[in-house]
C-alpha cells in the first residue's frame, strides 16, 4: 500500500522541480496503480475490503 503514497510523493516532488511530463506520467501511474488495486479487491484477488 505504501507504494502508491511513495509514488504520490515522487509525483509532487517532480512537479515542484519543474519536470512537467515526468510529473504527469508519475501521477497517472499512481492513479492506474490505485485503479488496479481497486479492481483486484473487487475480484477478491486482493483482500483489502472489510
Amino acid at each position, binding site marked *: 500500500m505504501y507504494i502508491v503514497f511513495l509514488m504520490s510523493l515522487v509525483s509532487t516532488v517532480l512537479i515542484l522541480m519543474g519536470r512537467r511530463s515526468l510529473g504527469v506520467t508519475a501521477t497517472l501511474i499512481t492513479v492506474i496503480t490505485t485503479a488496479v488495486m481497486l479492481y483486484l479487491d473487487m475480484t477478491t484477488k486482493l483482500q*483489502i475490503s472489510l
Partner: protein
Amino acid sequence: MNLSRFAYQLNALALLIITLILAGAFAEQLYFGELPCPLCLLQRVGLMAAGLGFMLNLRFGLHPLHYGVTLIAALVGAATSARQVLLHIIPDGMGYGKVFFGLHLYTWSFVSFVSILFGVGVLLMISGSAHSSTPKLTRWIKLIVGLFLLVVFANLVSTLLECGLSECPSDPTKYLGLEKIRSWISGVKP
C-alpha cells in the same frame, strides 16, 4: 480580473480544500486513534492525485492535460468510495468508522470526488481555450503547495507505520509497521 486569472485562483482554492480534507482525515486518525482501512487509504491517494492535477495548473499554467489528470483521479477515487459505500449500504448497518455530520467519512469522500468532477467541469468552462503562460508562484500559493507536500509526506509515513512494507490488514487495529520497528530495535519477536 480576467477569467484565466480567476480560474488560476480557483485552482489554488481547490488545492487548499483538498489539503484541508486530507489534513482533517489525518487529524481524525491521530486524535481518535482510528486507523484508516485500505480502501480509505486508496481514497486518500485519489484525493492526492486530484490535487496533483490542480498543482500542475498552479506550477505550469492552466492546461486541459492537467484538468484531465484531475478528472481521471477523481473518477478512480469516486469508484473507490462508491465501492465502500456499497459494502456498508445494508439497512440499519453501523457502517465503518465515525459518523461526521450525519455521513460516514467514505460517503463524504464520494461527495468530495463528485464535487471535484463538477468543479473541474466549471473550471474548464471558465478557462476555455486560454492557456496561461507559466505563472509566478505567489507567497500564498507556495504556502498551499508546501502544506500539500507535507500532507502527502505525512500520509506516506503513516501508511508505513500502519502497514509496514506488506499488504495492509482489511480491518487495522494497530500500527503493524511501528511494532515491527520496535521489535527490531528491542530484538524481541512480536
